[in-house]
């Protein structure tokens, strides 16, 4: 595998391979060495969290990073410039991590340069490193990815993270509960895909309705701007805010996940319950990104054998 562009490109076996390598890195079974390797972090769209996570991953393997930031107004739409910038940076870096608002830009980048390209988010399209770290968090807490009941709450219409997650989990026979305000429901193209694959799902408007049936509750942000007026927002807010009192009868293995940052969807009193998993989830992101970088840069096979 040379690039990580889209979850759509990955087979079930490849997904499990990423899980395996992340686990071995976390356990200290393998210790990939990126000494004298440089990762270029091209962030045309700001994302402090994702940037930090990649930089940490590289540093934990003794590697270096260089960062290029586009201003909010700069886009990749300057014709020659984007291709030329990529070609130039590819002369310096051993691997390119790219985030933009333009959909398909990571795929395009991978066609232009010879070094591996990692998609760190391309608009509303894909965010495969987030999907993989989410899966890693699920397998770590549940012991398996198979046959789980997963609640997905928040902005399901525009949330690329939840789209990738649903897509990535589809290979593992899940049951989904989609929880959102009515106008932020899961788009029909995703539901059609699920129907085609005979995957069971149910749409709900209250977060606590079926919470006792869930193995995982994946909460995402709902942005105020999505609402027509503030009153609607305040009204809807209550129905998808997770409170400690809702957790009285949840399953023992139940875990709450969130890609962070949260803006009130999970009340802080949930934090000290054993069900809160969003901060460890962020930590898992570093192990997963270490795994991704080392798989794409190669040389892992020797590491595993030794």
């Amino acid at each position, binding site marked *: 595998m040379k690039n990580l562009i*889209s979850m*759509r490109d990955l087979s079930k076996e490849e997904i499990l391979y990423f899980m395996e390598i992340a686990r071995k890195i976390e356990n200290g079974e393998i210790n990939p060495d990126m000494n004298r390797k440089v990762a270029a972090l091209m962030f045309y769209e700001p994302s402090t969290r994702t940037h930090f996570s990649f930089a940490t991953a590289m540093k934990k393997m003794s590697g270096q990073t260089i960062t290029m930031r586009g201003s909010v107004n700069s*886009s*990749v*739409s300057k*014709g*020659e410039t*984007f*291709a030329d910038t990529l070609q130039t940076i590819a002369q310096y870096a051993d691997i390119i991590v790219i985030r933009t*608002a*333009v*959909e*398909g*830009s990571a*795929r*395009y980048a991978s066609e232009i340069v010879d070094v591996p390209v990692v998609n760190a988010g391309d*608009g*509303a*399209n*894909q965010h495969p490193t987030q999907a993989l770290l989410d899966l890693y968090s699920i397998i770590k807490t549940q012991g398996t990815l198979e046959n789980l009941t997963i609640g997905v709450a928040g902005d399901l219409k525009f949330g690329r993270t939840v789209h990738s997650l649903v897509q990535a989990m589809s290979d593992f026979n899940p049951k989904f509960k989609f929880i959102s305000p009515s106008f932020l429901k899961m788009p029909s*193209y995703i539901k059609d895909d699920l129907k*085609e694959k005979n995957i069971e799902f149910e749409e709900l408007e209250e977060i606590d309705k079926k919470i006792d049936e869930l193995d995982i509750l994946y909460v995402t942000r709902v942005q105020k701007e999505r609402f027509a007026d503030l009153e609607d927002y305040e009204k809807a807010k209550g129905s998808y805010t997770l409170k400690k009192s809702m957790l009285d009868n949840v399953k023992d293995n139940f875990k709450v996940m969130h890609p962070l940052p949260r803006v009130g969807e999970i009340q802080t009193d949930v934090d000290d319950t054993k069900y809160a998993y969003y901060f460890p989830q962020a930590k898992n992101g570093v192990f997963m990104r270490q795994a991704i970088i080392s798989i794409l840069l190669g040389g892992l096979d020797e590491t595993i054998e030794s």
Partner: protein
Amino acid sequence: MKQLKVDAIKNGTVIDHIQAGKGLIIADFLKTGRGNVMMIGMNLQSKSFGKKDIIKIENKTLTSIEMSSIALISPKATITKIKDFKIEGKKKVELQNEIESLIICPNPKCITNMDEVNSVFYVTQDENNVVRCKYCEKKYSVDEIKIRI
């Protein structure tokens, strides 16, 4: 039962077995306003198709891009070349699995609409007339897309 006859042409191309209703769309992008005589028959009875459209164009041979476009719009269409009132070659249009440059991605945030990137669309095998953009990965039905001629 009486058949409506569309006039025979001396030299040119006959596009037959077009899904009823799609004839005008095909005629539109073939843009034969350049002087070629074009006849369009719509909602003709066909033994195997129910209703169909048919197009005859004088003095025109279709390019492979035009044939792909026709396949996209009406996958069961047939193309017949006519020379001196005789059938010279007849074939079914074929949809390639990968269509390059031909389709304009309807997604305004797609890189193919922002940069000098040629569009590439995959034809999904399981569904009829559905294509997926290689770059932004969005799926579109043939009715939603525009074709670049």
